[in-house]
């Protein structure tokens, strides 16, 4: 019988044990395990994930280990054929608390969830960032995400020119 725990090596050279159940919540690790059935289990290298972030991912997996597998919903247009953005509501209280972290940490977890292919965690982080963007003015978003406004006056002038506005109009 396959061993119940899996070793992985993180980017900062730490070896971390995680249960088979949690490891299999990552499609990336899961397919590595399937590829190496019967072979001696060596620690799986995860060069893109730090131990700090991996611990967060394991926390999330522990909380969600008994969740049913996600079902892909087919989106239907309603009668009025309106565009409906995907729902970004985070309903789980534990999840709400989990995303209450520094932006840097959020981005790291999102990158790890993407690399490890942990669907539920990936969706959660995307929803959270989307919620951070919603209803904010460009200035507020720049401040929140620390972005420089590099749109030059020339850019803006070029845009106007493309629209046929002449100097006399402005």
């Amino acid at each position, binding site marked *: 019988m396959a061993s119940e725990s899996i070793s992985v090596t993180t980017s900062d050279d730490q070896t971390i044990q995680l249960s088979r159940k949690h490891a299999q919540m990552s499609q990336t690790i899961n397919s590595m395990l399937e590829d190496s059935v019967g072979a001696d289990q060596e620690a799986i290298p995860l060069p893109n994930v730090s131990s700090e972030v991996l611990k967060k991912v394991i926390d999330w997996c522990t909380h969600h280990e008994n969740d049913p597998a996600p079902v892909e919903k087919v989106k239907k247009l309603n009668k009025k054929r309106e*565009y409906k953005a*995907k729902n970004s509501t985070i309903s789980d209280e534990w999840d709400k608390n989990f995303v209450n972290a520094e932006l840097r940490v959020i*981005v790291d977890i999102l*990158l790890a969830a993407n690399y490890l292919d942990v669907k539920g965690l990936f969706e959660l982080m*995307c929803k959270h960032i*989307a*919620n951070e963007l919603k209803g904010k003015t460009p200035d507020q978003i720049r401040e929140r995400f620390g972005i420089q406004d*590099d749109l030059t006056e020339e850019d803006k002038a070029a845009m106007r020119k493309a629209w046929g506005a002449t100097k006399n109009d402005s």
Partner: protein
Amino acid sequence: MEGLPEEVVLHIFDFLDIVTLSSLRLISTKWRSLADDASLWQKVLMKSFPLQVGQRWMWKIQKTSPDLEVFDYGYSARHVKISSRQEKADGLHPAICVGGELDNDSSEYWEVIINDIARRSIVGVGVAAMGVRMNDLLWDEFGGAYYSDGCTGHSGVLAMSYEPYQKGDVIGVLQWSCAEEATVSRSVLMHQHLKKRAKL
């Protein structure tokens, strides 16, 4: 955010309404190009318009305020300009209104494309019925207003901005297809339009 791969950013954008998406264009050049991602706008724009293929629409631009000037640059495109500064207490600035009428006797149909609604700072688009006052409009989730009575097909489009418009600003171009294109499907038209826009 800087380190995120493009496909991840676009996945995040899937959760956003058209208002937020449009304001992302004003953040920086990088964000502008991400928010301009053709597939995304195609999705948002196409689904934003309750136009049915197979219906004939006659369109005219009407002035919603004495401060608006409508310039006709030919049969296929009209520019709408602001002739004086517009101020609005609620922060949104209605700019364009297009009226449409449905003719059930014809098998032809025309289509209206809002040509690049987000070129400057227009943050929402919606549909409003002709002759319906602003207060009667339903405000939808993408920040536009819409009203449609369904059977007669009276309908219109409003575009809005967070920033007050300045005199002389061109806030949008409205374009509709001519009869030869009438059999072309809407998705093809939209695709051509987006390709054309990418070249600008």
